[in-house]
């Protein structure tokens, strides 16, 4: 049973389209994250939610909008896709936001290609 699952795994779309990536965790964790991994493999935090509340919002274009319907789900909606949005997007979770030393569990990633 997958701990953190993302869908879809691959997404190819044209510039200007709007797309969503879904993430679900069955670990009972309170805190979920979205990371972006660029072509050079650099993983950068985008957003973090704790119990459906936004707690981290790094410098990300407002075309990106996270939504957390409940603490087990964190979706990412992207409007007006641009070529530079092409990357692998990872969802992750940790037990709670004050857990400094605990493991972050990652999904398998969604490879987004904008053409």
């Amino acid at each position, binding site marked *: 049973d997958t701990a*953190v699952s993302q869908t879809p795994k691959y997404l190819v779309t044209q510039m200007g389209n709007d797309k969503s990536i879904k993430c679900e965790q069955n670990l009972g964790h309170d*805190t979920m*994250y979205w*990371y972006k991994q660029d072509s*050079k*493999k*650099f*993983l*950068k*935090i985008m957003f*973090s939610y704790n119990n459906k509340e936004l707690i*981290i919002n*790094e410098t990300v274009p407002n075309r990106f909008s996270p939504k957390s319907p409940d603490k087990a789900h964190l979706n990412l909606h992207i409007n007006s896709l641009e070529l530079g949005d092409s990357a692998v997007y*990872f969802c*992750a979770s*940790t037990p709670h*936001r*004050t*857990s*400094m*030393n*605990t*493991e*972050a569990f*990652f*999904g*398998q*990633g969604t490879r987004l290609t904008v053409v």
Partner: protein
Amino acid sequence: TQLLEQSPQFLSIQEGENLTVYCNSSSVFSSLQWYRQEPGEGPVLLVTVVTGGEVKKLKRLTFQFGDARKDSSLHITAAQPGDTGLYLCAGRFSGYALNFGKGTSLLVTP
């Protein structure tokens, strides 16, 4: 966002060789973790170090945390092809989101 510098960026070695990967920052870490990522997968935790000077071993992998908690190293003894992957250091400074280094891509050939 505090920066973590990792080196080397790429490493290609033969089976049986030893190697060391470094992770450095100008800031003090609250804790530091090492993750390994295989192609098409998300990062998976290898180890967490918390105390300055701490050394942890995981089979052929040895992790060291600097005394000042600003740097860390990962040493692999007698590398095997199964060690191939992307090694990422990640630190939490004052918050709870992980900040990652740029990674070290390791290729071990038979």
